[in-house]
Every structure is written in structure tokens, then in C-alpha cells.
């Protein structure tokens, strides 16, 4: 570890460029079953994006994910990773290049945290020093103290810690693509939200292409840059950004799946900072309730309703009033599909990310 602590790994661990992922007319039929598990799935995930596969159970979302690293073999069509067909790859080698996290995490109980993280690097034949340095860097990245947890066994960790180690392990060999099957599914709601936030922060740093499977539409909206809604029979119902999905569900199925409160969900995607506020009326009544501009529009609506419909004064980080928000304004933001509520939520989720870095997944490693 001493040798590793040289100039070469100062600062955050480096991550290679993400890869695009493309499903091309993919079918999966299981022998003995008349209906396809996945029917003609075509979609493209841009490099560095989180694509959430969501849908009711049995819709083929996990099947679709497992076709990518060939845990299951597809029946028809092709899947391209970085422009190259996965079918031409030796499955074991392919899988070492794709991060893999499942709901139960699947940490190896007989190996320490450091040994778990070292799994793929060892398979790839990295030398000890490099593996140890990488493991330390990753533990620091997920906010854990390497000296404290490296030697522990998974049985000595909490569920949330295990989940984070699972993600660190999947990132160990710096894969251009990560597959995550309900990675927060087994975590209690409070910790789940914290881990989701943490994961989004991490993703802002590592910018991997991610296929994320969930049955929870709220999680899909929160985590996804793009959401693929699948329906029974493995058919793609809609593939869109969260805002688009909420504003313009493709059909009744999607509308029902995203929920009757989809307008509210849309409001949750943007903050007051992103909508055109009404100018303050200097002559207007004072003493109104104030609200920070980083608050989501949904929470602002809730506050307005709770206050009997009175407008709120929006303040910036220095508590300076920058405008006001009214019920009518929120209504207009919803009605205008090109308006703020139709924009992606990145700015809201990643207040600290440098815009240039966040917008360019292909940025060279620092």
C-alpha cells in the first residue's frame, strides 16, 4: 500500500470512457414457451447515460439486461457495445468488461471487502499493488475508510454498506458499462433514498453507461437519463427522458404505469431556479413566505397549497428575493411542454457538478 501511495494516484480514481449500448431488434424466446420474453427490442443508450428499464414483473426487463452480458443468450437480433456485437465476444471476457450489480448484491461472504473488490482485477491479472491501490481509491470514492473496512467480511457490514461495496466491486476494473438489477431493492426506504442520491453523485463523477432495472417508476424517474417502459410480452411501450415520459405518455398503459400523479412527478423534476419567475411587485403585500430557488417546483406547489394559495417569494442562496411563484405560474410551466418542467433534471440532481464535465461523458480522465 505504501508503494501505491505515490504521485500516480493522487486525487480521485480515473475512469475510462463509457460506451454506447444498442439493442437491435432483439428477441428472446424461451424453449417451451409460446410467448416471447422480449419482443423486438430496439433502443440506443448514449455513452454515459443511465437507461432505466422499468415495467411490471414479467415484462422482460431483467431478461433484457442479462442479454447484454450474455448471462442469457438472445434468440434473434443483436446487441452492440461500443459499436461491437456482444455475440462475437467470449462470454467470460465480455462479462469482465461489464460491471454487474444485482439486488442481493452477491458479495462473496468468504472474502474480505478488499478481496471482493479485487475480484475482476484478479481475473484480469492485475498485479497486487495496482489492485490494492484501486481498492483503496474506490472505497474512498464511496465514502468508506479503507483502513477500517478493507479487512472486514460482508457479514460484518450493514445492508447499505454491502450495497455500496457491491457498486465499488462492479466499478473495480473500470468497465465502460454497468448493469444494475434493482440494486436498491433490498434496502429500507430511508437508506434507499440516501443510496440513490449517493449513487447519482457517484455517477456524475464516473459517467458510466448504465442499464438500471427497477419496477419502481419513482426510482426510474429519479435515476434515469432515459427510461424504457416495458410491458407484458417484453414489448417496449415507450423510450424517453423522464420529463417526456411524464409529459407525453405514449399510450394508456404508460400513462397508468407512470401514475395519475404524473404532473406532480414532472414538477419534482425541476427546481424554481429553472422556471421563469414572476417579477416581484415592490408595492405588493410583504411578509410572504419565502422559499429557496433550489426547491423543487413540486415542493413549492405543496407549500402554496398549504398556505391557502398565496404566492411565495423565491430567494437565492444569499436569501435575496429573486421573484415570486404562484399557482398560475406552476400551471403554465406544466402546460408548456418546452418549458422548464420539460427539461432534464440534471441541474437539479447535481448542483455541484461542473457543467462542462457533466455534459461531456467523453471527457478525458483527470
Amino acid at each position, binding site marked *: 500500500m505504501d508503494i501505491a501511495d505515490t504521485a500516480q494516484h493522487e486525487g480521485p480514481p480515473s475512469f475510462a470512457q463509457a460506451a454506447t449500448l444498442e439493442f437491435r431488434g432483439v428477441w428472446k424466446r424461451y424453449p417451451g414457451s409460446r410467448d416471447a420474453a422480449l419482443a423486438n427490442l430496439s433502443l440506443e443508450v448514449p455513452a454515459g447515460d443511465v437507461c432505466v428499464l422499468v415495467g411490471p414483473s414479467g415484462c422482460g426487463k431483467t431478461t433484457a439486461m442479462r442479454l447484454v452480458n450474455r448471462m442469457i443468450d438472445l434468440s434473434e437480433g443483436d446487441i452492440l457495445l461500443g459499436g461491437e456485437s456482444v455475440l462475437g465476444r467470449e462470454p467470460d471476457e465480455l462479462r469482465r468488461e461489464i460491471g454487474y450489480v444485482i439486488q442481493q448484491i452477491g458479495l*462473496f461472504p468468504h472474502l474480505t471487502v478488499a478481496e471482493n473488490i479485487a475480484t475482476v482485477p484478479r481475473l484480469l491479472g492485475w498485479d497486487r499493488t495496482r489492485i490494492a491501490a484501486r481498492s483503496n481509491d474506490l472505497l474512498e470514492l464511496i465514502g468508506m475508510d479503507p483502513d477500517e473496512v478493507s479487512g472486514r467480511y460482508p457479514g460484518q457490514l450493514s445492508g447499505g454498506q454491502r450495497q455500496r461495496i457491491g457498486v465499488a*466491486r462492479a466499478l473495480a476494473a473500470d468497465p465502460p458499462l454497468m448493469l444494475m438489477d434493482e440494486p436498491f431493492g433490498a434496502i429500507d426506504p430511508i437508506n434507499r433514498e440516501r443510496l440513490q442520491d449517493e449513487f447519482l453523485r457517484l455517477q456524475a463523477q464516473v459517467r458510466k453507461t448504465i442499464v438500471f432495472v427497477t419496477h419502481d417508476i419513482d426510482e426510474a424517474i429519479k435515476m434515469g437519463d432515459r427510461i424504457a417502459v416495458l410491458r407484458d410480452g417484453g414489448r417496449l411501450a415507450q423510450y424517453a427522458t423522464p420529463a417526456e415520459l411524464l409529459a407525453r405518455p405514449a399510450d394508456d398503459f404508460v400513462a397508468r404505469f407512470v401514475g395519475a400523479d404524473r404532473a406532480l412527478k414532472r414538477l419534482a423534476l425541476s427546481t424554481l431556479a429553472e422556471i421563469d419567475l414572476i417579477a416581484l411587485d415592490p408595492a405588493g403585500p410583504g411578509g410572504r413566505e419565502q422559499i429557496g430557488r433550489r426547491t423543487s417546483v413540486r415542493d413549492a406547489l405543496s407549500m402554496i397549497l398549504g398556505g391557502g394559495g398565496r404566492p411565495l417569494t423565491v430567494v437565492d442562496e444569499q436569501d435575496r428575493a429573486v421573484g415570486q411563484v404562484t399557482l398560475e405560474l406552476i400551471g403554465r410551466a406544466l402546460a408548456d411542454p418546452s418549458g422548464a418542467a420539460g427539461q432534464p433534471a440534471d441541474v437539479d440532481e447535481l448542483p455541484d457538478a461542473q457543467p462542462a464535465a457533466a455534459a461531456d461523458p467523453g471527457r478525458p480522465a483527470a
Partner: protein
Amino acid sequence: MLAAVVIPNFGGGGATSCVQENRVFCFGWLRSNWRGVLEPALVQHVVLTVIAVVVGFGLAMALALAAYRHDWLERPIGTVSGVLYTIPSLALFEFLVPSLGLTRTNAEVALVSYTLLILFRNILTGLRGVPADVRDTARGMGMSARQSLLRVELPLALPTIMAGVRIATVTTISLATVAAYVCDQGLGAPIFTAINENVFKTELIAAGVLAIALALVADGLLVLVQRLLTPWARA
């Protein structure tokens, strides 16, 4: 006394009055016959046991791995090893005499066949007990079937496998005393001698206690080995 007439040569040189009268236990006999009788018998017993358990483990491992890969093999292998297990030991030793003679091979074949059922069952149960999610991630992270088996599945099956090895070892130590019937080796040899010599109690008890002590020590050592091999199990 009648006994004095029937017992011609109790344990060779150390014929004291204690031995003559066949009292419950004669330490004098033990002292003078440790080197010549008991120690070699104990060593032979250990050899008989180790060979049987090692060979049995190798066979059972091969069979269990085959049944782990191909489910349909479990039933035939389980049935055959189960039938072997039910054969009375004395009958099996005797049954093998025509083909293998009064040899250690005969004894080992019988002892090995008794270990098979326990070891086969425990190895297979241990492997099948590896959580599905752990196997799934091993494969999903790019381990070959062989790497997954060696690095993940077998290590995780170890507690169950070791439990089988412990039972098999203790059982074999006990059964190996009967093996003296066909090969005149191990702690069974002095026991048979004692029985033939009008149930000479000292020799019978000494050999019997040694067999029990051996079983306890072997079991204790195996527990220790298991602890060393599975530090994670205490986590």
C-alpha cells in the same frame, strides 16, 4: 483358578498377578506393552483411517462434482453409496476376502465405501447451499465455471464439507477396529487378541480407550482446521 489355565501367554512378557487374575486394568501391562503392541496398533489405525478418508474424500468429491453438474446423477450415486452404507461392516469385510484376501486393501475398500455416503451427501449439500445470488455474481463478473467452483462455490461449501469429513473420520476410526478381522492391523488387532484370550480386560480397555481418544483428537484437529480455513464463518 480356571482362568490361569486357559490364558497361556497374556501379552507376552509382563505376566504379573494383575494380569493373571485379569483384573479390570493393569498399568504394568500397559507400560510394558505400549511399545510392542499398542503404539504400533495406534499408528496402523491412524494409517488405516487417513487412507480411507483421503481416498473416500477424493472419490466422493469426484462423484459429488459430477452430480452437481448433472442433477440426474444424484439418485444413482446416492442409492449405490446408500446401499454400501447399510451393509453390516463385518459382512462386508468378510465378503471381500475371496477377491482381495486378508489384506489391508480389503480393509480399505470396505472403509472407503462407508465414507462415501456421508462425504458425497455433505459435499453435494454444501455446493448446493451456495446462495444463488453469489453464484450469479461470480458468473456475471466473468469467472469461468472452474474459477467459480474453485474460488467461490467450494470455499463456501467448506463448512458443510468439513462437517462431513468429521463424521466420516470418526466413523472410520470406529469401523477400522473391525477391520482387524481381515488384516490384523490397527487397534482392532489387540482388541481381537484380548477377546480371543478369554477377554483380557486390560488390553481390551486400553485399545478401546485409545480408539475413542483417537476419534476425539481427530475430531478436535478437524474443527481446528475448519476454523483456520473459514475465518469468515465467525464474522
